[in-house]
């Protein structure tokens, strides 16, 4: 069963603009993570936010978590063509010991 669902499914922006992706989930979680996947490759971890955190930054990435709404957002600021990829959220449900992924958002950044 899919725990996380990303929105939008696809996003196309110009270089320099900001990109925002959202993730909703269904059950209580220990943490939520965001991953990036370039076409035909494995996933790369971007950032982890714990259930007791509300916001986290890493370089041009900003992640927020609202556990009352069971949702998270990933903001990429000043996007670059190299940010073109699929982005996935993964939730680690309480006491499950495994991560469940959503379907992903495909981001295209046009030069």
């Amino acid at each position, binding site marked *: 069963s899919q725990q996380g669902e990303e929105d939008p499914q696809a996003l196309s922006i110009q270089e320099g603009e900001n990109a925002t992706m959202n993730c909703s989930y269904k059950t209580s979680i220990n943490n939520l993570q965001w991953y990036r996947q370039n076409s035909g490759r494995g996933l790369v971890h971007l950032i*982890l936010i*714990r259930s007791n955190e509300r916001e986290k930054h890493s370089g041009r990435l900003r992640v927020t978590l609202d556990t009352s709404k069971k949702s998270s957002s990933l903001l990429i600021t000043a996007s670059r063509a190299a940010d073109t990829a699929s982005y996935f959220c993964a939730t*680690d449900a309480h006491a499950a010991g495994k991560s469940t992924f959503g379907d992903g958002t495909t981001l295209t950044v046009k030069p």
Partner: protein
Amino acid sequence: DVKVTQSSRYLVKRTGEKVFLECVQDMDHENMFWYRQDPGLGLRLIYFSYDVKMKEKGDIPEGYSVSREKKERFSLILESASTNQTSMYLCASSLWGTGGFATTGELFFGEGSRLTVL
């Protein structure tokens, strides 16, 4: 850097063949996972393992088995491949208990194995 290596990037097999997908990690991680990725379905967990000789079913274990004889190696086995098992298979590993009891923490992925079953 953690490295997760999947033995084959591309495989083509025939229906009914036995298929082995191998995954090796070099960072002494306790947890190892096998996912499959299909368009529109995201990543779905097939099996995972917290320790040697230990395995747990994920969300879609049917048609698959796994083996973990050594800590660094986690193998996915398709006993009799079928066309609906054509997919991208992703192996991942993580430290046990990162961030608390029974939490997964950061997953490190291999490059994936794209399997086509004819």
